[in-house]
């Protein structure tokens, strides 16, 4: 992930001012309401969430074993497995595969992990045309934008913007009617699906026991991507494992309900190996790329629990901060509360994302896995603030324990006090003080230290 040039505050300001966050707010509230209604219709939700949590934590605590089983099972049904330590290795594997098959055009169903490794860029660099087929991702690709929500990538765009985009890029008559925009995309992508050389998907969940991968989509692009082309490549974060089919069932019972309020996503697609000789259709080759890319460090650290996330997006929809600023303000691929934990943990930076939260706990309330996001945000905050704090305390000790340095410091602050003039406030300080004065003023030190004042006014009388 090479984005995130400025910090959260730097991105959030413009996001609020340009009004785009309004569309996000409306969409997120609607999704949150749909979730609530679905759970009212499903009395077993709480019990199923307990099960889902237990299965995810159990799997992570034995992840090496389950990954080993999964890889063996995939190979047994005729699939290929590649273990990628990082984004570069994953991209290299897929580009080499594309070259070997002389792939001219690849189709993709929505996948956040391929966003994370920037696979499209790698394929385009070797002249493979990559077409995103999820309607939202297709719009994002046409607009040269980035997704702003885990499951609703264009939550930040209005239908008018999309209408103008289609008219300009697809050479069709302008319409802002969603049904007609839908049909334009269907017509445009149909031929592309049927003539593509390679299909690339993510993996929602993988079943260790059978070597199956499960991909859920509402639009059906996931099915076409994994059926029409000769080669199917599935890229998965290494944490997306469940032990068996029963475990997969539990996850699926909570996933769509938490995401969009549907009992199940329209297409729950379970793929176990490439097509067999007697089968009429399906891909002739299946490649599964299992990606680490920082996940093993997350697993070893304070934020390990976040790896149990199943990417439903419920924490985004409910989050007052996400609703106000939209997904792009988070900088990384994964936005909202889950992104505030995952991005700093994966990249090992002490960015300000863990502070992008009110700690209200709504994310934990709605999470189907009951992930304690606020606890991890606090841990990451502590981690982020420890480093600079330790440095400044050490510097302070160095000054305070040496009388000559102390007096020098007092003289320097006296100068600062006189420079600040009558206002008594410093509005722009150099060096480490800048972090404070960027957002508020600093009271100026007194021109004369108390020590000196005592000496001048009282010292003589008291004989000290």
């Amino acid at each position, binding site marked *: 992930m090479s984005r995130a040039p400025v910090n959260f505050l730097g991105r959030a300001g413009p996001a609020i001012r340009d009004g785009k966050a309004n569309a996000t707010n409306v969409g997120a509230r609607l999704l949150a309401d749909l979730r609530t209604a679905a759970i009212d219709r499903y009395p077993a939700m709480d019990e199923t969430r307990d099960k889902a949590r237990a299965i995810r934590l159990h799997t992570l605590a*034995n992840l090496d074993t389950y990954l080993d089983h999964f890889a063996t099972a995939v190979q047994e049904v005729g699939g290929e497995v590649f273990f990628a330590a990082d984004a570069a290795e994953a991209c290299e594997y897929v580009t080499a595969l594309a070259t070997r098959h002389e792939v001219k055009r690849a189709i993709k169903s929505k996948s956040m992990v391929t966003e994370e490794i920037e696979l499209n860029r790698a394929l385009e660099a070797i002249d493979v045309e990559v077409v995103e087929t999820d309607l939202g991702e297709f719009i994002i690709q046409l607009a040269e934008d980035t997704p702003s929500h885990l499951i609703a990538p264009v939550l930040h765009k209005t239908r008018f913007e999309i209408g103008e985009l289609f008219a300009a890029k697809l050479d069709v008559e302008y319409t802002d009617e969603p049904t007609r925009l839908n049909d334009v995309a*269907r017509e445009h992508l149909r031929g592309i699906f049927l003539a593509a050389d390679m299909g690339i998907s993510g993996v929602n969940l993988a079943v260790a026991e059978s070597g199956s991968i499960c991909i859920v989509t509402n639009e059906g692009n996931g099915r076409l991507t994994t059926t029409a082309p000769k080669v199917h490549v599935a890229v998965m974060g290494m944490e997306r494992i469940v032990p068996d089919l029963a475990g997969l069932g539990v996850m699926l019972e909570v996933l769509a309900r938490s995401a969009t309020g549907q009992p199940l996503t329209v297409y729950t697609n379970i793929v176990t190996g490439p097509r067999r000789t007697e089968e009429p259709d399906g891909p002739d080759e299946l490649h599964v790329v299992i990606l680490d890319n920082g996940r093993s460090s997350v697993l070893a650290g304070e934020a390990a629990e976040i790896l149990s996330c199943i990417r439903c997006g419920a924490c985004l929809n409910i989050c007052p901060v996400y609703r106000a600023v939209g997904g792009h303000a988070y900088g990384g691929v994964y936005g909202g509360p889950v992104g505030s934990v995952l991005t700093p943990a994966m990249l090992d930076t002490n960015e300000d994302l863990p502070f992008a939260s009110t700690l209200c706990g709504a994310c934990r309330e709605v999470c189907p896995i009951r992930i304690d996001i606020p606890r991890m945000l606090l841990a990451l905050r502590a981690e982020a603030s420890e480093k600079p704090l330790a440095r400044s305390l050490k510097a302070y000790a160095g000054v305070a324990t040496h009388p000559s340095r102390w007096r020098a410091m007092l003289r320097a602050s006296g100068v600062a006090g006189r420079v600040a003039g009558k206002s008594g406030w410093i509005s722009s300080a150099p060096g480490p003080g800048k972090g404070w004065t960027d957002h508020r003023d600093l009271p100026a030190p007194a021109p004369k230290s108390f020590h000196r004042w005592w000496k001048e006014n009282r010292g003589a009388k008291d004989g000290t």
Partner: protein
Amino acid sequence: MEREAFLHKVAVAVKGSPLPPCDEQHLSGLVPETQSDELVELFVERVEAVNGTAHLTSPELAPGLVLGLARTYEASSVLSWDEGELPSTGVLRHLLTNGLTWVDGHVPADQVGRLEHQEAYHSVQLGLTGADAGLAESGSVVLSSGPGRPRMASAIPIVHVVLLRVGSIYASLSQYFAAHPRAAFDRTNLIVVTGPSRTGDIESKLTLGVHGPKHVHVVIVD
């Protein structure tokens, strides 16, 4: 990266991981059934709730009903599972003797042949399949791939007609998996279809038939 090295790194991470403890009592046992009486009624209600259409019929009436659907949508061709794979006999034959063209669902293995073959899928309007199961709670149908069962029949046409035996309706996906724990081993593709293809990507407004079928008719044969 080598598999052993990768897995070793994961094993080391697991050992030092401060993961919260797993509550083992929740690991075993089924997901609770919410409603198990009146499965057929519930199934019909839920199919409609996800924008599908359910029909209850008999083996004798099924062929005529499906032909009627084909005429409603002005379908002139059909991509179908083989006659022997459909749970109700005579439906496909009835369509073909009444003027619908059969689109071959057997895709050649070579790349050129594959692409040429799939050209024909552009214009196919009707997909006809069976189903291994119906799921009452979600209004879904479960389809598995295999010989004589092209996956594309339920993926590419604008109309999907599913034939389902009334006896194969389960309470939920979890219940179906519990009854068929080897379902994913035996078939390369298991697809659970819950209503027509849809999206809410544009201003969260629901639109149907994005890439898959816009109309899903579940014909329950008693």
